[in-house]
């Protein structure tokens, strides 16, 4: 393992890979800094452009965008109390009060440093935890792979978003999309409507670009058009407002929380857990929400700590735990790499190269995300959102065209943009669609191979030990939203008073 890690390091320090990491980190910070844009949008837009790049350069670019966008969300959170990304909500609790006291520069320095530490620890966890897990996953046969995929889909449907039923419907929609095209086993066409372009299935990239790029762009148009998020002039003075002795425990604890939360599929509450834990264990809990150094350090370190960790189940089992992980899985597939335990055997330099890219881009946040650079990046808050709409649309259109050099894919992307917008307006989560689409073909293939292996006997899916464990885990997972729904829709009746 360690020789692969070393070989990958030598590949990652090649000039073109380093350049991709710097570019990706800058792009990510810019994206994260603009409220309404996100890492998901950035990665969805960047994947088509990465076609022309070698896999490692492409993954380095995407790693930079991922880490950069997670940190970039801190800029508007600190300066304007507008979290640029959902993960930056807790950052605004203490970052904004610090900025109000004239310590915006110091707060940004601390945010950048905390993000860098969280991201670095997470990348190390990816390097060390993924290979043993991949070894375990090598023992999985088709029935086990089927249940692992079902577990991944159920986790995203159950835990991501507020509504379990809508999550399952969205996942089913993705699974049905994955069934479009010529069946690999029988050669029969399914749901192609005699369109030749659909015979090879719906390209994952087109759905990604469609549902993750067009709706946020159109939503931007509904905001105050001519007004930038930050009309004021920001005065950012670089100063140190924290001591290492004050934050190192918080960094370690929050990073650990971020890694655990990141590995679990469908979790999006890491920053709140770490923030509450930091407050609980603090000597000055009353300062939280009023400009606490510890609060800001906790929020930002956990924010980046789940980035690389979320890739552990993606790379080892091929099961993405979040929308971004699903996009990364799609990116790997586009470059001809099949995520799963075999990837560690077939292309270890790619897996460990990606882990190194996550580590190096985390460290790049220190110079690129600190107060000195903040003075430059704060200007992007003055860009009117109305101007971002055509930029995103043009990029998305060209990206979807480049996926197959055909206008048909552009029409499909626009159609999925409309579907995505409708789903968002009706509060259906979008991530399960992508996860269903990505995992659907694999789940179906494993199911059919399992049935062929057993001569059509379906008990093979329910009797093997790992299958039983996966079924129990899936049921346990599904019980969480079921209990939540029961509490919501069948609340306890108030106790009736008797007598009197």
């Amino acid at each position, binding site marked *: 393992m360690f020789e692969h890690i070393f070989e990958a390091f030598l590949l990652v320090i090649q000039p073109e890979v380093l350049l991709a990491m710097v570019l990706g980190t800058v792009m990510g910070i810019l994206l994260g800094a603009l409220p309404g844009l996100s890492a998901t949008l950035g990665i969805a837009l960047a994947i088509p*452009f990465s*076609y*022309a790049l070698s896999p490692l350069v492409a993954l380095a670019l995407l790693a930079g965008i991922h880490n950069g966008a997670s940190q970039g969300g801190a800029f508007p959170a600190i300066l304007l109390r507008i979290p640029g990304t959902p993960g930056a909500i807790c950052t605004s609790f203490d970052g904004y009060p610090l900025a109000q006291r004239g310590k915006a520069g110091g707060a940004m320095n601390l945010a950048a440093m905390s993000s860098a530490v969280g991201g670095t620890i997470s990348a190390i966890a990816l390097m060390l935890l993924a290979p043993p897990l991949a070894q375990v996953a090598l023992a999985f046969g088709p029935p086990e792979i089927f249940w692992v995929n079902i577990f991944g889909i159920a986790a995203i449907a159950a835990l991501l978003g*507020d*509504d379990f*039923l*809508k999550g*399952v*419907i969205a996942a*089913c*929609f993705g*699974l*049905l999309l994955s*069934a479009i095209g010529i*069946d690999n*086993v*029988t050669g*029969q066409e*399914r*749901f192609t409507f005699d369109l030749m372009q659909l015979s090879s299935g719906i390209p994952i990239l087109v759905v990604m670009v469609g549902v993750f790029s*067009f709706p946020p*762009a*159109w*939503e*931007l*148009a*509904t905001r105050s*058009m*001519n007004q930038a998020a930050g009309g004021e002039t920001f005065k950012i003075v670089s100063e140190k407002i924290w001591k290492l002795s004050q934050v190192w425990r918080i960094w370690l604890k929050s990073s650990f929380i971020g890694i655990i939360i990141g590995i679990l599929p469908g979790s999006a509450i890491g920053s709140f857990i770490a923030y509450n834990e930091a407050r609980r264990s603090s000597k000055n809990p009353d300062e939280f929400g009023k400009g606490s150094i510890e609060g800001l350090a906790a929020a930002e370190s956990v924010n980046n700590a789940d980035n690389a960790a979320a890739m552990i189940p993606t790379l080892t089992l091929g099961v993405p735990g979040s929308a971004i992980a699903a996009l990364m899985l799609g990116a790997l597939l586009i470059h001809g790499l099949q995520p799963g335990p075999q990837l560690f055997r077939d292309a270890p330099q790619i897996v460990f190269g990606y882990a190194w890219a996550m580590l190096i881009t985390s460290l790049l946040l220190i110079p690129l995300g600190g107060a000195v650079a903040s003075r430059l990046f704060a200007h992007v808050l003055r860009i*009117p959102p*109305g*101007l971002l*709409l*055509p*930029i995103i*649309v*043009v990029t998305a*259109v*060209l990206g979807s*065209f*480049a996926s197959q*050099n055909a*206008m048909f894919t*552009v*029409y499909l992307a*626009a159609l999925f*943009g*409309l579907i995505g*917008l409708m789903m968002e*307006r*009706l*509060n*259906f989560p979008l991530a399960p669609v992508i996860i269903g689409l990505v995992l*659907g073909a694999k*789940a*179906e293939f494993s*199911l*059919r191979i399992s*049935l062929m292996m057993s001569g059509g006997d379906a008990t093979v899916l329910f009797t093997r030990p790992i299958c039983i464990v996966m079924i129990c885990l899936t049921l346990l997972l599904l019980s969480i939203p079921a209990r939540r729904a029961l509490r919501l*829709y069948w609340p306890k009746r108030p106790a009736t008073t008797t007598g009197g």
Partner: protein
Amino acid sequence: MTDTRGNAPPGQPSPASLRLLSGDALAAVGVFVFGATAFFMTSDFSGQTRIFPQIVSGMMMFCAALLFLRTLRFGQKPQVRPAVNKMALGRSIAATLGYVALIVPLGFLAASLIYMPLAAYLVGVRNHLLIWSMTILFVGGIYLLFTGPFHTPIPRGLIFQLF
């Protein structure tokens, strides 16, 4: 007899019927129809080919029915989404669809040079210098990137192919 469905004034829909027309109920009907269509289409597939889509579309119909029943019984959960400027949203979608339609006859370059400033003006941006400089720099940059280092052909347009 008391109307248990709600006390609506005469001539106006009762709260219960309003609930039926809520987004979730309509979404549930739409999803059910979609799932049923997919389920029906699987009948043309041979044995093994139809197992997976049948299970999935069946599950989709079941969840849609549950969603509909839930909306009927408990109403729709209050939405936290802010109010939308529907005109602006409609304009931006229409401009995007128009742009996509124009790429084939005009080509990427010409269609983008028309679309980018038009979309910005449509949504209310009035900084002419910013709009035009951003348009030329962005479209030019992306065109050079694709035709140069990426070696990716981009749509030239039917009109320009005549010359």
